[in-house]
């Protein structure tokens, strides 16, 4: 138990080692935030209060989701995949710390670094230029919890995809499919409140919604009281399910490695 906080710290240190690169990435995030905001404003012009959002909500949604791209890593990918491909994962498996626990701590460190370096510029630019729904302090505290849960759900999904490398030899096909699911169903392309009818209902129940849509809604203050607890419980449920599946898959992967004489 004493090792994992250090793993978190070193993950944080590693991902804050090149601040300039992160800053340039956040510039692009900000640009895309502007463009998405304009598109949504055009829609809200003809359909005000669509899905219960007003125009300020929609714009704030754009910028908070752009700010979350870094920490939650919606575009997928994990260093573990490369380590499995070239066999370095054997070193990871030798450690007296569980594989999933180690990488979760590392990922949380990465997320903290990413939040520090990349989340600021989009939110600041959005708040300055557009009508912005700034969160109340209580919402901000709830958002912090939702954010951590979102990162954990994101980790769970990416960890499962990474472990698939033990069975598949080429991860690019699976990566592409999960990228599509992730971008579409998390609310990055369009907020899930815009999804009509059944599609919207299904989308809001999937784990990808817990990554982006739920923390964004918490930021906007759309969940209060019991509803807030329900939203956080939804995230926690998916986090637990995914981490459980990850633990099972890790055991299966270990067996596979042993069977192949590795």
């Amino acid at each position, binding site marked *: 138990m004493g090792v994992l906080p250090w793993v978190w710290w070193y993950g944080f240190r590693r991902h804050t080692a090149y601040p300039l690169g992160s800053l340039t990435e956040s510039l692009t995030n900000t640009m895309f935030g502007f463009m998405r905001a*304009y598109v949504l404003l055009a829609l809200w012009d003809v359909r005000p209060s669509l899905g219960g959002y007003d125009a300020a909500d929609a714009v704030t949604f754009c910028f908070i989701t752009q700010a979350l791209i870094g920490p939650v890593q919606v575009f997928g990918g994990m260093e573990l995949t490369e380590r499995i491909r070239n066999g370095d994962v054997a070193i990871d498996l030798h450690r007296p710390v569980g594989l999933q626990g180690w990488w979760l701590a590392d990922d949380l460190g990465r997320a903290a670094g990413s939040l520090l370096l990349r989340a600021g510029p989009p939110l600041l630019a959005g708040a300055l230029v557009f009508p912005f729904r700034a969160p109340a302090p209580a919402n901000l505290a709830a958002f912090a919890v939702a954010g951590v849960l979102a990162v954990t759900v994101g980790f769970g999904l990416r960890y499962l995809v990474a472990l698939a490398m033990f069975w598949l030899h080429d991860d690019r096909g699976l990566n592409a499919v999960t990228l599509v699911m992730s971008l579409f169903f998390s609310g990055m392309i*369009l907020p899930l409140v815009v999804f009509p009818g059944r599609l919207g209902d299904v989308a809001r129940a999937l784990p990808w919604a817990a990554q982006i849509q739920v923390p964004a809604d918490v930021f906007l203050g759309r969940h209060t009281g019991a509803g807030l607890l329900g939203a956080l419980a939804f995230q926690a449920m998916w986090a637990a399910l995914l981490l459980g599946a990850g633990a099972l898959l890790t055991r299966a992967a270990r067996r596979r490695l042993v069977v192949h004489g590795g």
Partner: protein
Amino acid sequence: MYGVLAWAWIRAAAQYPVSMVLLALATALVTGLDVAAILLLFAHAPRIAGFTAPEVLFLYGTSALAFGISDIVLGTTERLGYHVRQGTLDTMLVRPVSPLVQIATEEFSPRRFGKLVPAVLVLAYALTRVDVAWTAGRAAMVPVMVAAGTAIFGGLWVLTGAVQFVLVDSHGASKSVTYGGGFLTQYPMTMFARDFVRGVTFVVPLAFVNWQPALYVLDRPDPLGLPEAARFASPAVAALVCGAGALAWRAGLRHYRSTGS
């Protein structure tokens, strides 16, 4: 030379035919997400920012086709910063082939062509459904605008790549010009703020990829009030951008001093 190198990579990829086809399909699917977004938008209203769904799909089709072709041909130039940092650019400079061609054909795979599938399908659909009084001029404008758009995006790829000779870490920011440009040209510029549209007309000439020619084809007034001639300026703008890109690349190469390892 480009063809020879590209073909070599394609032959390598063809060793795993199933994977190749699947990856092409996956690429098509990822690119198609933008179409899904437009369709979802128009599920709620027939006109947004003064444009109907077929018109926006027309804009998407022309933009995505131009961007897709330029991405296939020159998209990998964005990796210049990575090559400079790794030192592999020096390896390329030793070879008797232009480094631009080498970087552009790097890992050329038929799956790149998957990017064109949604664009071609949507453009074909939009051309049949859009409400345009077709004349010879307007019909000729469509291939011209795709070609000019491809050239503009290609020039921008090389230009933003060349910036990485000087600012090695600028890849993150230059994505806002290339991928950002690809995204914003899918939508009518009436959605964006005035100053923003001025910026993408006069500073980074993305408005000439498909917006200005589309104003001619769809017969709409220009929200910025530019003269009629601007709608035909795309080929000239493309030549300018390509020229700037070529100059920047040559200058970067000439002044390149490696990491000194």
